[in-house]
């Protein structure tokens, strides 16, 4: 590499190569976008699914995607929506606010007529604006933090009961058992902190005492220090407001350390996995839960076809996602077009009675008009309805 001539030659070649690469890249990108536009113009419609299919909550997300797919399979077999076949496109939010923004933008720009999903409240929150700006109706199947309500600009619909309903159900249960003092444990994320704060507020308003409020970090494994604090405060009941994974460990460590009182968990912990993690300690644990498939009389056929298709039983949010997908389809049918305003209008006035998890209609805030919370109890390594 000596001499100016040589360097110049090399530069020319490098430059040519680079511009070639850039051309190829641009061509590829243009092709990709024009292909999605082409797909949208076809005689079919696409529904977006915003669920976590990677990361720590991937099991729940995959389960929701499966349920939506099953619902659409049935819809398509019956002739589709507005005479068109419906397909899905999955946006993986990884239960992470930043990734969910990317996933939602991807869905918004791929011409979907509506979106179903939303599992983690924290990851769902920033997507509301994106779907509102793109005027896409969004049926939120699982996420139920009360923080979502004020952020909704009218195109999102929450078909799971919110934290308010859950707290009401929890307080009712605690009072029926004569509980006077409770300990609250959350995991420092939007969903569980919101639920713990709401519970503390309502519980103290009713003149009772919160013995201690604790926060643990996700994935910490060792909760002995918190367990010791709880034991020294000695409350009548412990309410874990976060997800099953760390909840299972906490329950196990509470029982091992000899805590005898009631242990209750919120709807983020209603998974059968809790029994894998907590083992025999989960016996007698109370869960406030949205209705899961095994306790829904209408869901028998759904459970069978789901199990046949995917090789395992549906998870806790499968029925709601299935209902949400069918609700969206029926709203499009009622609107008579894929015009977003008409679909939103149809959802607002929906009187949906074909749901596995019960009827769906909405309040003025676009939340479910009734409370769907049930009380479960851990019995013999599985959930059963509590008396």
């Amino acid at each position: 590499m000596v001499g100016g001539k040589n360097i110049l030659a090399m530069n020319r070649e490098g430059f040519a190569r680079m511009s070639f690469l850039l051309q190829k890249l641009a061509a590829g990108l243009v092709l990709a976008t024009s292909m999605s536009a082409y797909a949208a113009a076809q005689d079919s419609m696409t529904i977006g699914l915003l669920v976590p299919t990677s990361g720590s909550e991937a099991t729940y997300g995959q389960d929701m995607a499966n349920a939506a797919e099953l619902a659409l399979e049935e819809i398509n077999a019956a002739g589709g929506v507005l005479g068109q076949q419906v397909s899905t496109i999955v946006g993986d939010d990884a239960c992470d606010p930043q990734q969910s923004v990317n996933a939602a933008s991807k869905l918004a720009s791929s011409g979907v007529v509506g979106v179903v999903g939303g599992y983690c409240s924290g990851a769902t929150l920033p997507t509301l604006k994106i779907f509102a700006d793109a005027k896409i109706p969004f049926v939120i199947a699982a996420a139920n933090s009360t923080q979502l309500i004020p952020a909704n600009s009218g195109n999102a619909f929450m078909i799971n009961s919110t934290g308010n309903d859950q707290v009401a159900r929890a307080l009712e249960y605690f009072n029926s058992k004569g509980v006077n003092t409770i300990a609250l444990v959350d995991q420092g994320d939007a969903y569980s902190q919101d639920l713990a704060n709401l519970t503390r507020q309502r519980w103290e308003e009713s003149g009772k005492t919160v013995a201690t409020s604790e926060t643990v970090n996700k994935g910490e494994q060792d909760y002995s220090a918190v367990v010791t604090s709880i034991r020294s405060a000695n409350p009548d009941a412990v309410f874990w407001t976060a997800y099953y994974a760390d909840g299972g460990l906490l329950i196990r460590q509470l029982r091992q350390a000899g805590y005898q009182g009631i242990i209750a968990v919120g709807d983020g912990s209603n998974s059968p996995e809790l029994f894998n993690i907590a083992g025999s300690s989960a016996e007698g644990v109370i869960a406030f839960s949205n209705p899961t498939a095994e306790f829904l009389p209408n869901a028998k056929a759904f459970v069978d076809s789901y199990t046949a298709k995917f090789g395992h039983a549906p998870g806790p949010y499968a029925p709601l996602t299935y209902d949400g997908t069918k609700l969206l389809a029926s709203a499009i049918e009622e609107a008579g077009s894929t015009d977003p305003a008409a679909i939103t209008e149809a959802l607002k006035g929906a009187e949906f009675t074909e749901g596995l998890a019960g009827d769906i209609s909405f309040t003025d805030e676009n939340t479910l008009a009734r409370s769907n919370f049930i009380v479960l109890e851990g019995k013999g390594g599985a959930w059963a309805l509590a008396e």
Partner: protein
Amino acid sequence: MIERSPVHSPLGRLQGVWDNPAYRWPLIFGLLALMVVAPHVLGPYATVILTNALLYVVLALGLNVVVGYAGLLDLGYAAFFAVGAYTIGIVHHVYGLDFWLTLPIAVLAAAGAGIIIGSPTLRLRSDYLAIVTLGFGEIVRFSARNLSITGGASGISGIERPWIFGWEMRSSMDFYYVFCVLAVLAVIASLRVADSRLGRAWLYVRHDEDAAEAMGIDRVKVKLAAYVIGAIYGSIAGAFFAVNLGAISPESFSFQQSVLILMAVILGGMGKVPGVILGAFIVILAPELLRDVGELRLLVFAAGLLLIMLFRPKGIWPSQGR
């Protein structure tokens, strides 16, 4: 591993093109023109992703001042990003001060945070400094999670968009251009500061701290300057991040976030502005482009990282001879 001479690899050729002034300016104008037309050609999804990449360009250039120029390992850079974002969230959104008046407050707050954490700890050698910055980052994140003024774990949402000359920054396209401007300003500032007296002082300190001190450079002061400048970049990025997303929460400022920014700096080539820009684009675009690979996308991404570092141990586009 045999290190290939940079001129023989395709990237080396690219560097060669870059270093030749006859090509550099046309290339720069070409890239700027591409940036202007990109959102119109590529559509809204790509616009959001590119905006995100430009945000990381600003962040990575800021961290590059600390890591690349001054040679200080910082594992908690997201803290400054958080200070900028939360200052906007609290002062602009909660107390209603205009965005453009809040911006200098955010910058001052981050610079102040840089001085507070930097002055007692910058005497430490790099691995100890790394853990102090990591600890500082975690303290900021946990405080944001636990305090009520920061909105707890849910954070602050519904942050109002800024107006400039009677125009409201609203759509994702608007913010794309805002971040384009920010990135260009960050590049110019980085290049100028590297060539300044301070930039040369960093060079000495990075190569031989003791010799630099013997030559009369106050190493703590010089390092503190790097820290504060890096903090300013982070806070400005954070401020615009907050108004773009409209919602901020502690999860966006985790240790993983700091590591991602650091990855952009090292992957691209510490201390070299075009390298850092390239690094930022890779860490943001690669996982997005791999979305269709499905569950294995992070595995593919990791394998790619490993291969890049094995073949280009100094980063893709390292600074040479400095």
